[in-house]
């Protein structure tokens, strides 16, 4: 048995089998070391996968060697290889980061459970991304969601509102997942298959009310999971009250994965790219997704300005950023799709770094209100520096990744002649200047000579290093744009490729 041949299964099988063992390990350091080692192993697998796909093209892996229409297929093309790499990379950074942060934020006895849940959450997200079987998406989505509910609720030691946030997330998430299953059932009834590529082939020329309603159910279900603007209500509270490292992980990965599923269904299954309009896809893109995206990025940005809580502010900003991604998706062009892919990747880098910076503040100062950030540039220079750089990236200042993705998005909107959205992209970026600038201004404020703030130690190295890796990635990939843009363009093409790889 060649290990390379089994590579697509490894990132899923490994954590799925090894995560439960975490619970049996002693609390604290040992379980942390164990979980971190697993996360690095998965990162290694995913990096190998990305390399393989980049070099040799898409990989199709038959689980248990059952051929696709009947068996379950794992299909790795450039699009999901990129996302797999992203998830596992964020995971590999969050696990080392979380040791100190989690020790401070949750009960020490709960740490093994925490690491097990985080590993399972990661497994679920990876599984959703890698699979080529539509029902598998649901199963993995629920694996990740269930562990996420538990993870969010663990923030209760800091703030009991985490419990209600987790409960609301559970209700909304379950409704979303169930809608997704209903949609799948309708599609299965229409096509008799669950394999994505197979389904795509069978849907051609099959545009009736059943397919349309299936499409609508999947769209709304995934919209709930990815916090599309009017369906985002679970997100701000869940992100604000979850433990810091959980927020950093979720903000960087969870919504991206749901968005990926939506793209996969839109472009690989309903197949807008080749000009076949199944399930009234074009109309949906133009008259539903685009307005929702634009309103979302505008309203959520505005709400973010008035937040008193930095974590909550960043959560609203996440909703706005999802608006950007949906906008790129709604353009229905390859340029728009690659802009979405780039922004998915870049947003993970900046939001990961920002939430980690907030986590450092929570670790030293015990809170994430805006007042805790006063004079931070002097008190915790490294943390403040990371926050400023990734905050600028969030705004879209040149030389950072945020600029690259906004630039691509603008280009994509110009390409299809959508002037209003392109104007609104710029306008909402200006709002981002306001809310990020507010925090930066407070951090840089010189100390009051009459009432000096007590000096605080800088966050521990174990938290600073992962955070700064993300920050450096923010800047490096903002300068070396070719790398991400190339892969994302290939990824956008990969959605086409599934279509053209005619089964």
């Amino acid at each position, binding site marked *: 048995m060649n290990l390379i041949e089994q590579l697509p299964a490894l990132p899923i099988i490994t954590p799925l089998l090894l995560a439960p063992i975490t619970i049996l390990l002693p609390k604290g350091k040992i379980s942390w070391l164990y979980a971190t080692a697993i996360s690095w192993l998965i990162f290694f697998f995913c990096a190998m996968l990305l390399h393989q796909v980049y070099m040799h093209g898409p990989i199709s892996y038959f689980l248990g060697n059952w*051929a696709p*229409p*009947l068996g379950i297929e794992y299909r790795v093309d450039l699009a999901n290889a990129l996302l797999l790499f992203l998830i596992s990379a964020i995971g590999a950074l969050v696990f080392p980061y979380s040791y100190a942060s989690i020790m401070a934020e949750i009960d020490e006895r709960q740490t093994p459970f925490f690491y097990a849940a985080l590993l399972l959450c990661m497994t679920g997200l990876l599984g959703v991304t890698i699979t080529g079987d539509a*029902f598998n998406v*649901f*199963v993995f989505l*629920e694996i990740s969601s*269930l562990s996420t*509910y*538990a993870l969010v*609720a663990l923030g*209760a030691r800091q*703030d*009991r*509102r985490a*419990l*209600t946030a*987790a*409960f609301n997330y*559970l*209700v909304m998430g*379950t*409704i979303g*997942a*169930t809608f997704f*299953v*209903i949609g799948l*059932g309708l599609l*299965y*009834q*229409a*096509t*008799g*298959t*669950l394999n994505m590529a*197979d389904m795509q*082939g*069978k849907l051609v020329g*099959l545009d*009736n009310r*059943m397919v349309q309603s299936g499409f609508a159910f999947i769209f709304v279900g995934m919209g709930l999971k990815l916090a599309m603007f*009017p369906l985002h*209500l679970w997100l*701000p*509270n869940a992100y604000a009250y979850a433990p810091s490292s959980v927020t950093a992980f979720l903000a960087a990965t969870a919504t991206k994965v749901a968005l990926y599923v939506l793209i996969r269904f839109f472009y690989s299954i309903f197949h807008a790219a080749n000009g076949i309009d199944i399930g009234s896809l074009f109309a949906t893109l133009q008259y539903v997704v685009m307005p929702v995206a634009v309103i979302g990025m505008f*309203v*959520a940005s505005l*709400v973010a300005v*008035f*937040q*008193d*809580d930095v974590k909550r502010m960043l959560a609203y900003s996440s909703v706005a950023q999802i608006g950007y991604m949906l906008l790129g998706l709604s353009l229905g062009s390859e340029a728009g799709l690659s802009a979405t892919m780039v922004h998915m990747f870049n947003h993970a880098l900046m939001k990961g770094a920002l939430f980690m910076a907030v986590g450092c503040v929570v670790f030293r100062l015990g809170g994430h209100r805006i007042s805790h950030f006063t004079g931070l540039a002097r008190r915790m220079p490294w943390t403040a520096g990371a926050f400023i750089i990734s905050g600028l990236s969030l705004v879209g200042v040149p030389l950072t990744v945020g600029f690259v993705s906004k630039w691509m998005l603008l280009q994509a909107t110009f390409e299809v002649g959508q002037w209003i959205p392109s104007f609104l992209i710029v306008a909402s970026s200006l709002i981002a200047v306001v809310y990020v600038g507010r925090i930066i201004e407070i951090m840089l404020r010189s100390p009051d000579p009459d009432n000096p703030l007590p000096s605080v130690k800088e966050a521990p190295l174990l938290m600073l290093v992962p955070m700064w890796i993300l920050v450096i990635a923010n800047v490096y990939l903002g300068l070396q744009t070719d790398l991400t843009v190339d892969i994302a363009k290939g990824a956008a093409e990969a959605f086409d490729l599934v279509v053209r790889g*005619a*089964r």
Partner: protein
Amino acid sequence: MLQFILERYNYWIVIILMMTGLYIVFSRGNLVKKIIGLNIFQTSVFIFYITIGKVAGGTAPILPADHDKGGHDEGGHDGEEYGEEGHSEEGHSEEGHSEGSISEAGGHETDAHETGAHETNAHETGGHSSPPTTSESHTANDANAFNLEGKLDNSLHDKVANVSNNVSNSDIKDALIDLKTIKVPDSAILQDPSLNDESLHVVGSNLSGKISNDELTQITKNVDKDGLSEGSNAAHGLAIELENGTKALASELASKTDPLHTGGHTGGHTGEQTSGVHESSLSAGHQTGETVGELIYSNPLPHVLILTAIVVGVATTAVGLALAVRIREAYGTLEEDELEAADDIAEFGQKGSYEGAEDLAKEAKAANKISTHKPQAGTSQTGTPQSGSIS
């Protein structure tokens, strides 16, 4: 109209349950009631999936012990086993498609009540099952496989053509016996180690695809054209005969390629294809009011899916209830407005006193009732919009 509603009563149940569940989730303030609503909502989906899996007259996809015994012994026991495998696989693709075709459009559905149903049905099955077969044949690049395929293909084609010609003379039996005598070319090809799983698989499915899709529909048509009163009967018999013939062929293939362990695949697929035709004639048999000794299986796949969904539902409920317990511990209440009021007090008043939460909640509730429209002293100081404000 009434007919329309009554025929789809399970869908109506699904819709009613779904709406009831969602309504409870949205309208009830009690967290446990919300979870109950969520459960009802999920149950509607279970029923929906079970409805998908239902096949008219179908039984559970389990093999009865005495099924299909004592029939034609040419195939031997192996053949029967492999054929059976195909049978159970039939549920997978065949029934999924037939379900699809039923709901696709009104047209096909009503066909079942007409005399021409026979033909359309056969077409239906043929058309639906062909895509995977033909595409698989494209992937075959093994020269040997093609070789073997060609040989088998030709002989089969001849015989089957024979059959379809003879049908008009009502000489079905002879033709079928003819068909059964097809010999698998016993040559080194089969022992060739380069013939791997895949290629044989392709050969098998190819063969069966060709027989079942083209020739069999032809045969069925011919039988129909004869206008015999037992037309469907004949077709049914023919299908059984053919199936057994293919089984025999499959088993022969299997026995020859035993060291490669590929018999199962080949046989399975051949059986699958034939049984598709078989099923179509079977439904024809139903029309003329005949009792048929064969079994139709309901589609097992939706049931498997829904088992998974049930597990997910149970897990979700468990997590939800666990959260409800923790919320009650922390807040002392499970009512949503009391929770919100308690949070407001915690945020703007005395922060996070766990013990006094219950009293706080009551106070807050009272305060809320008195001053619903007055701006609360606390909220004005920061002006923080809660998540609700932008929805």
